[in-house]
C-alpha cells in the first residue's frame, strides 16, 4: 500500500479508536465526513461502510497486513475481534440453554484458575501428605466439584449435557485439564467443605461468577490483547447482568464480595478459615 493511502486509513482508525475510548457506542464511533479519495480507497480495500453520519472503516472486514503492522491497525483489529466476542455474549444471553452451559463452564474455569489456596493444616487433617499432592488432586477434582455445584445451583444432573448446546453452536465449553478418581475428588470436597459452601453461597452469585468467567474465557480464546478492546466486552457482559438483575455493577460486585465473606466465616475450622476464599470464588480481574 502507498504511504498516503495508509495515512488516510490510519486517520479513520484513529477516529474510531478515539471515539470508543471516549465512551461512544460502537454504532456511533469512527464516522467522518466522506471525502472522495478516502471513499474510493475504502471501497477498493473492501473496508467501506457508510451511514447518514458519513463513512468509516467497516468493523466486519479484516484489515490488510500493511495496516495491521501499525499500532492503530493492530488495536482496531483487536477491537474487531472484541466486537465478535460481544456478539457471542449477546447470543448466549438470549438463549437459556446456552447460558446455563456457559455459566457452568465458566464456574469450572474459575475453580481451575484458582490453584485452591487452602491452609496446610486443613490438608494434613484430611490425609493429604503435601501441598503438591493437594494441588494435583484439587485441579483434577474441578469437574467433580462443578458437577456437585451444578446440581445445587443450576438443578442440573449432568454437566456434559449442558455443554452440548455450546458445542452445537461452536462455542467453547469446559474441558478439564485432568480428572482424578472420584475417591480423590471426594477428599477435595471434604477439605473445602464444599457442600457447606454451596449451602451458604447465594445461587445467583454463582451464576454471575460463572457467566463472567465464561466471558473471560471467550476473551482469552478470542486472542483479545488490548484492555481498550476488553472494555467493549466487559461492558456488554455487565450490561447483560445489570439488565437481568436490576442491580448496578457495583452492587453486584459488592454482593459477591459479601457472599464470599459469608463463605469464609461459615466454613471456619476451630476458629480459623480453611481457605483464602476470595482467591477461589471471585469475579475475573
Amino acid at each position: 500500500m502507498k504511504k498516503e493511502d495508509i495515512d488516510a486509513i490510519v486517520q479513520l482508525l484513529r477516529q474510531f479508536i478515539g471515539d470508543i475510548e471516549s465512551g461512544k457506542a460502537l454504532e456511533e464511533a469512527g464516522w467522518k465526513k466522506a471525502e472522495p479519495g478516502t471513499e474510493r480507497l475504502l471501497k477498493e480495500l473492501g473496508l467501506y461502510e457508510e451511514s447518514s453520519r458519513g463513512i468509516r472503516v467497516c468493523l466486519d472486514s479484516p484489515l490488510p497486513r500493511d495496516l495491521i503492522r501499525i499500532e492503530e491497525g493492530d488495536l482496531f483489529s483487536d477491537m474487531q475481534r472484541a466486537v465478535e466476542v460481544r456478539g457471542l455474549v449477546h447470543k448466549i444471553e438470549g438463549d437459556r440453554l446456552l447460558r446455563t452451559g456457559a455459566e457452568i463452564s465458566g464456574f469450572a474455569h474459575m475453580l481451575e484458575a484458582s490453584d485452591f489456596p487452602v491452609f496446610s493444616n486443613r490438608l494434613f487433617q484430611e490425609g493429604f501428605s503435601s501441598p503438591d499432592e493437594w494441588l494435583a488432586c484439587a485441579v483434577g477434582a474441578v469437574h467433580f466439584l462443578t458437577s456437585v455445584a451444578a446440581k445445587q445451583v443450576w438443578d442440573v444432573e449432568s454437566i456434559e449435557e449442558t455443554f452440548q448446546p455450546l458445542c452445537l453452536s461452536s462455542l467453547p465449553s469446559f474441558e478439564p485439564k485432568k480428572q482424578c478418581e472420584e475417591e480423590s475428588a471426594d477428599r477435595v470436597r471434604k477439605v473445602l467443605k464444599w457442600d457447606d459452601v454451596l449451602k451458604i453461597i447465594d445461587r445467583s452469585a454463582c451464576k454471575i461468577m460463572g457467566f463472567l468467567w465464561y466471558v473471560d474465557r471467550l476473551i482469552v480464546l478470542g486472542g483479545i490483547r488490548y484492555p481498550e478492546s476488553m472494555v467493549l466486552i466487559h461492558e456488554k457482559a455487565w450490561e447483560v447482568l445489570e439488565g437481568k438483575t436490576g442491580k448496578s455493577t457495583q452492587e453486584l460486585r459488592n454482593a459477591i464480595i459479601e457472599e464470599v465473606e459469608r463463605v469464609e466465616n461459615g466454613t471456619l475450622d476451630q476458629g480459623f478459615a480453611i481457605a483464602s476464599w476470595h482467591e477461589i470464588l471471585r469475579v475475573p480481574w
Partner: protein
Amino acid sequence: MVIPVNQRAIPVSWRRPEREVLLEDRYKYSRPPFDPFPDVTNVVNAAKCPVAILHDILHAIEDATIPGGKYGLGVLYQRFIAHLKLSAARKDFPSTSDVRYRFEMFARDENDKTKADCWRYYVEPWCSARLDRLQEANENIFFEVSVANAYVPFKFESKNPTYPLRGRIDEIDLKNCKIIERTIKGRRADQSPPPLKDFQVWLLWKALSTIEKRNYSEPWKGVDFEDFELIVETPYHEFVVKDNPDFENLAHIAYAWIKDLAGGGKSEFEAYQHRACTHIKTDMECGARWSCFGRRYKYPECRGEVHKEIRKFYPPLFWQQMWDYQLFRYQLLMLEKKDLEDLGYLSEGRVVSFKDGKIEIEITPLQASPILERRTSSGEPGNLLVIGSFSLGFELDAVLEEITNNKFVMNVGRKKLPPSERAMILPSESSILKTSPWFLSRYTQRDLFRLERWGLDKDENAEKHSVIQLLECLFGRKTMRRETS
C-alpha cells in the same frame, strides 16, 4: 475523563482495622478486612487517572506524575538543595562559581550522566533563580518531614468524612511559615504549577494541619500549620497554592478509586473506561505511559494465556502488602505505646548526642531486647528510627553500629534533626523478622507485569529466543522437545 462527583458513591466509608486485627490476633490471610493506608503518591496517582492507580496497586508503578527514568534525578536534586540550604543556615553561602564544584563533590558517587543531567536541567536553573535568596535560609528549616494521620477530614457537603493519609514533606520553614513541595517538573515559561503538584502539597498540608495537637512533639508544639503558605517549587519558579474546594472533590474521587480497586469493588475494565488519556491523546509526561501504551509485541503468541495465568497473582500480592506494611502503618497510629511494645515493635530511648550523622541513644535493657533479638536472629542491623511522633516527625533508616553499656550508636547519615530527647526504634521497614519483606511483593508484581508485556516482533528472532520458546511451551500450544546435539 474524571467522573463528576455526583455520579460516584462518595464519600466512601473507609474501613480501618479493628482492634483484633491491629493486635494481630487475627490470622493474616486473604482479602484484608480493612482498606489501604495510602500515601500521598497513591492519592495523586488515583487523582491523575484510575488506570495509574490500577498500575500502582497491581503492577507497582511509582509516581505517575514523573516520567519514567527521572526518579533518581529528583532524589539527587532534592538532597542537594537541602544540603545547600543547611549550609546557608550555618552562614556558609556558596558563590555562583563555587556551587558547581560543590555539586560535583556532593554527587561524586553518581554516574556522569545523572550528574550532568541533574546539573543542567534542574540544579543550574534553580541556582540561577535563587542562589542569592539563600540568605533566607534559617535554623528552623526541616527537610523530609514525615506526616501521617489515620483520620484526615475532607469536606463533603455538610459532612467531614475522614481518610487515612501519610507522606513526606520536602521542606518546612517554621520561621517563614512555608511548606514547600519541590519538583523537577516544570518549564521556564510556566505560568502555573505542574499538574497535580498543587494538589500534592495541599494533601500534605491537609494531613499535617489536621493532626491532633497532642501528637506534636518539639519543635512543632505551638505551631499552627493552618496558616502556612503552600508553595510548589520548580527549578524555575515558585507558585503559591491557595486552598481550593476542587481539591476536596478530587480527594474523594481518588479515595473512591483506591478503595474500589484495592477491595474488588471495581476492576481493570472500569478503570480503563475512565482513563484520563487515550491512544490518540496520550499524556507524554505520565509515569505510567509504558504500562498503558507500551509496544505490543507479536511474540509470545500465547500472551493471552500468560496474562490469564499471571493476573491471579496481582491482587493477593497487593493484599500481602496490606497485611505486611499498611497494617503496620495503622498500628503505629492507632495503637497505644504499650500495645506496640507488647507486639515487640517499639523500643524507646533517650537521645544523648547527635553528631556527624551518628546518634547516641540511651536505652534500658528491657527496651533494648527486641532490637538485640532482631539483630541476633537475622543479623540485621537496620532499624527505623523515629524522632518526633508517628504523626509528625522524622523517619530515618538507622544502622546499629555500636553497643556500649546502655547506649546504642546508630548511623543515620548527615541529617538536620530537631532537638529531641525521645527516640523511638522500630523494626526496619524491610525487616525480615517483622513480616515477610513487603517490598518484595512490589518487585514481584512489577516483574510479572514486565514479563506479560515483554516480547519480540521478528519471526526469526522469536524462533531462536529461548524465553519466548519456553513461554510458548508453558502457556501456549508448542511442544517442548530436547534439541539433539
